């Protein structure tokens, strides 16, 4: 039976994949609304590519089901699914020219007249003038666009992108991100994008699912994930966070107070994941301001006193500081360069920020989770 006519959301229920004793994907539940740009974000080995390969049919799930609309495609052969993939290394056919590469899917489905469609598709990815070239004669960015065109021309229900920009240099990657987003808006198909680059995920996706060790750690819009991370892993992996361990000291209406290293930190109760006991307070570096030690700090702000600047890097729009706190932790502060004095390394400072900008996490987890992979992922 063919399932080409399946239409609707991509839905995954209890999807599990084991390789021997290793569980790559662990009981995953997921719904990707039709027409959305969805990103699966995670470090290498977190199971995101395996998930993608199960959706495309190139990998059989150990357990669980995959639906497109109401059609169960779990046991449908890959060549009968209304799903196409843009492969990580593009996997263009080296013996065919660009025109034939793009026409490949149409021809295999018995479409006779492909010239017009291929022409339109190549125009969409701005490669019309290269139709007669072989893939090996194209640059990385051009090959990438051919791979997108080759998949898109089949008008799949779901387009899967497996780290499609990984092989490109930074500038080209930024350009292609915008390009892909434009194409997605234009054609209105469901895109599922797998990436380890958190900036890429945030730039492109409507919804991001952060994956860790075969499970979804948190799912939501880029803004929501960034402002309200649910776990230390998300807080550290998605951008940078200052996380400080403490204990909930009390609640007053909508405001929670956390005691951390002798400082009382206020935060909205709605943004804190726990109400009592151990908690971790977090604040993003760009929300924090520096003041020279002893200088007056406006009332009503959260304050960490006794810091010493260990590093100040001036990067044009902002200055990025590392401040060593009395309890040994180093916190990051990004100050906009809008006329404030620059604090030299060695100067004593206090950190202060708006209580509303604080988020709180459950204190019973590894405060460093996700922090070490951030460097690798960003590179």
């Amino acid at each position, binding site marked *: 039976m063919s399932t080409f006519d399946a239409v609707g959301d991509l839905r995954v229920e209890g999807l599990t994949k084991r390789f021997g004793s290793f569980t790559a994907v662990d009981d995953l539940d997921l719904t990707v609304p039709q027409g959305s740009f969805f990103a699966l974000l995670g470090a290498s080995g977190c199971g995101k590519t395996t998930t993608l390969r199960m959706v495309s049919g190139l990998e059989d799930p150990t357990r669980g089901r995959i639906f497109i609309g109401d059609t169960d495609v779990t046991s449908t052969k890959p*060549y009968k699914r209304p799903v196409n993939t843009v492969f990580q290394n593009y*996997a263009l056919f080296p013996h065919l020219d660009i025109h034939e590469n793009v026409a490949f899917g149409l021809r295999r489905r018995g479409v006779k007249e492909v010239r017009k469609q291929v022409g339109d598709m190549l125009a969409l990815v701005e490669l019309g003038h290269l139709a007669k070239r072989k893939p090996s004669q194209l640059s990385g960015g051009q090959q990438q666009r051919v791979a997108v065109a080759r998949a898109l021309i089949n008008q799949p229900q779901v387009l899967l992108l497996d780290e499609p920009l990984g092989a490109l240099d930074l500038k080209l990657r930024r350009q292609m991100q915008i390009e892909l987003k434009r194409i997605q808006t234009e054609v209105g198909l469901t895109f599922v994008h797998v990436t380890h680059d958190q900036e890429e995920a945030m730039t492109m996706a409507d919804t991001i699912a952060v994956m860790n060790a075969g499970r979804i750690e948190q799912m939501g819009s880029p803004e929501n994930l960034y402002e309200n991370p649910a776990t230390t892993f998300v807080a550290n992996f998605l951008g940078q966070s200052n996380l400080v361990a403490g204990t909930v000291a009390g609640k007053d209406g909508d405001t929670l107070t956390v005691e951390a290293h002798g400082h009382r930190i206020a935060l909205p109760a709605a943004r804190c994941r726990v109400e009592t006991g151990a908690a971790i307070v977090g604040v993003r570096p760009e929300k924090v301001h520096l003041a020279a030690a002893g200088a007056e700090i406006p009332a009503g702000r959260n304050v960490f006193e006794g810091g010493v600047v260990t590093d100040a890097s001036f990067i044009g729009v902002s200055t990025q500081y590392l401040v060593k706190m009395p309890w040994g932790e180093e916190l990051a502060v990004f100050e906009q360069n809008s006329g404030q004095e620059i604090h030299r390394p060695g100067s004593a400072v206090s950190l202060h920020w708006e209580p509303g900008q604080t988020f709180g996490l459950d204190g019973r987890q590894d405060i460093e989770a996700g922090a070490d992979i951030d460097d690798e992922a960003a590179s």
Partner: protein
Amino acid sequence: MTAATAQLDAGASPAVGESRRKRNPLPYILLAPGVLWLVLFFLIPIFTAVSASVQTGSLDEGFTLTWRWANYSDTFSTYNSEIAHSLFYSVACTVLCLLLGYPLAYFIAFRGGRWKNLLMALVIAPAFTSFLIRTIAWETILADHGPVTRFLMDVKVTDLMAHLGLLTNNHQLLNSPFAVIFGMVYNFLPFTVLPLYTSLEKIDPRLHEAGADLYCSGFKTWRHVTWPLSLPGVIAGTLLTFIPAVGDYINAYMLGSPNTMVIGQVIENEALRSESGYPTASAMGVVLTVGTLLIVLFYVKRAGTEDLL
């Protein structure tokens, strides 16, 4: 700084000019042994063979160059069945080698995993024994009252083979076109498998996934992706099989009969066992060489991979 550069330039340019004028003899010295070898053992013999092919005479009287082109037409009319045999056996051998070798090479390349190298070593292993000895061994295996013959007779396969003209001497497996082609396929199979394996192994398995993703069943993926990409290996493999097969006469000699004589045997007989056979043998040799060359050129042209030559 600028002065130093200028001085350097001034110092360097005459040296460069000089070395350009004085040719470096090293490449020629390195080439010389090979060229000498080819001239002595390839170019000169070709001239001797071509000139011998239009001579007349006998071993006793000596041979003289009489430009007797009729040697060629005589050769063709006398030995047309041997020429036909050579062609038929070598083409059949090449086709069978491809049919047997392609799945084998495909299996080793894509399913061999960590056994790949071992499996390829096994394909080549028989070559460690002499070609001649292996062929003699088949003579024993296919012998008239051997188990193979008896089994094939019992299951009536020999009847079918006799019908197809593969067995000429009743139910005897030996001394038949079947035995000759069989021996050739056995001996030349590694020459087909090796280049096929090399070109299949180079194909990125992710291209198969791309095929599956783009509506190709397993067979369609092979037809539209694997096969075109393996064509260079197919062409190299069939050429490496066909060229030696067309000139081979060991198999026809050991496993065949007077009814399965091939060009190689004619050349041997004429050159070694006939008083006045040198010109005929030479003409045959020229026909074989030129004929093979023409067939190969035509084949490569048709296959559309001129860049192989």
